[in-house]
């Protein structure tokens, strides 16, 4: 690969990839904060969003200083996998999460809940999930 092509790929990884990873970070750590550390949903959303800048910054620096593109992408991939694992582990894993429940965490306690949906009260946050045993 030519030098300039490599440079372009690095720039794209830094800007687009960095932004994508930081948004991923801002979403993935929210369940961990709410379920394990008992923060309210809005608090943990703010915390992860604020910290995601740090994530962006680190990805940009890494994009330009790792020796090869392959090692860069490998590292970023591992990081993404860790984030995903964290997200999956924090959401109670024996329960299938309602697909549009995205909304999962967003549903606050006072909303109407249908039969096959139950709520767990994890202190401050109410998780909604469909119970498809």
């Amino acid at each position, binding site marked *: 690969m030519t030098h300039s092509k490599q440079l372009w790929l690095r720039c794209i990884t830094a800007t687009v990839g960095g932004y994508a990873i930081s948004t991923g970070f801002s979403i993935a750590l929210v369940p961990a904060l709410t379920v394990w550390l008992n923060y309210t949903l809005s608090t943990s959303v703010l915390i992860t969003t604020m910290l995601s800048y740090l994530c962006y910054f680190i990805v940009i*620096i890494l994009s330009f200083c790792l020796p090869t593109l392959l090692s860069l992408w490998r590292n970023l991939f591992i990081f993404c996998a860790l984030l995903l694992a964290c997200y999956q582990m924090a959401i109670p894993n024996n329960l299938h999460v309602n697909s549009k429940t995205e909304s999962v965490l967003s549903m606050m306690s006072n909303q109407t809940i249908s039969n096959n949906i139950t709520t767990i009260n994890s202190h401050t946050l109410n998780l909604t999930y469909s119970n498809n045993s």
Partner: protein
Amino acid sequence: MKPDFRKSMIWLHTYSGLVIGWLLFAIFITGTLSYFNQELSQWMKPELNQYSPNVNIINKSITHLKSRELNAERWRIYLPDSRSKHLYIQWSNGRKRKVENLSLNNVSPIEVRDTKGGDFFRTFHYTLQLRGYGGRYIAGVAAMMMLIALFSGIFTHRRFFRDFFTLRKAKLSKLLSDSHALMGIVTLPFCLMICSSALMIYVTTYIPSSTQHFYPDNIKQFNKEVFPSLPALDKQAPVAEPLTDFSIIEEQINQKWTGKNQIDYITYEQPYRENGRIIVNRVKHNTLSNQAERLVFSSTSGKALTGYPEQSTPMKVRRIFYGLHEAHFADVPLRWMFFILGLLSSALIATGSIIWLNKRLAKVKQRHIGHHIVECLNVAGFAGLLLAVLSYFHANRFLAFDVSNRASLEVNIFLWVWLTTLLHSILRPAKKAWFEQLMICALLCLSLPFIDFLQDSQRLVNAVEQFNGAYLMFNIMIILSGVAFLKTALWLKRKNRVTTG
């Protein structure tokens, strides 16, 4: 890619700085000017300059508000302070909002020229006059790139102490790169603070995915949880007369907030209803946070009501970043220090761009089109922006009082002058363009106090009599910068003659 960490950091420093340098310079200069937002606004509204603190301002303002519009849903009284000297009232019904300026002598309405004042610089430095077209996002990208340039700059200029104590004046290129490193070291903490806090202000706007993900249909719900608010008022409550004697409330405030002149502004919500309330915002001099303390009272009886709920900790952190950026807490010496650091950072950015060009022009024989573009943008982006800022001040004095859309006309003059400097820099050879634009800057600076004096000499007399620091310092600073522009222009000309001749 370059294998060694330092080398890749140098590359990153060079190009992240080059790509965004001109934009950053514009943001830094206008942002630095908005440290003196209120003082600039005061200078640009010379009709305001009378001050006698003995009149009961608040009660008289309330009487004015009462006589203006029946059934207004909201009143607001902005109290003057020593920086702004501006008292004005605002009343609104639904979305319609009306503003009236009041004289400080007898609290009667006065005509003030229509201008955005120093506030233009404040809004320009983060919206870039592109509100609705993503201006704030561009400013955010610029802040992030500045952080990258700073971080990589640490590795580029790694010999801190040697750089700090070296300044070789003999050669232009040596002087530029030495002063670039020197200013970088001095302003590094300031720039880090400014750029990271700038990003924090719009944190959920720049990275909205988390809020959108967890609050898919109701961002309002998120805002409600994050921003503490008071319960909504019933608009159909029985009619009642609002409180017109503010002294009852003032007594209660004095017990809670120590010190004089602690009120920033007063809001009446639903003044003509029984359940109406008064919200008093405290000045931000004594808090790092951008969220002022607030007290709530009933608008009919003046009794204290339950105030705002406590903010969550991350919100407080964000508010403190916000407050650090705005520096409302800074008293006069600290404000000047911030101002000087802001100017140094702007100079840091400008020298960086100029060094890039000079280094490359010294090496190449055949010029690339890129060199020409950078050369033109350097002139228009640095000297041209300063020229545009100065012409904005001149427009404020020259435009007639009663021109329609006067405020936006001033802004348009700023933008057109900036565009003209770009054209000028394309048409003229670079060295001449630098010299000419700096000379015009000097001319504008030095003529401004005289024009102001010729228009109405009473302004200066009043300012001296009342020892109005804002007005006097403006004039002194503008003359000083005029002299600085003149010296730089003449020095550049001499240098160029030496190198070419």
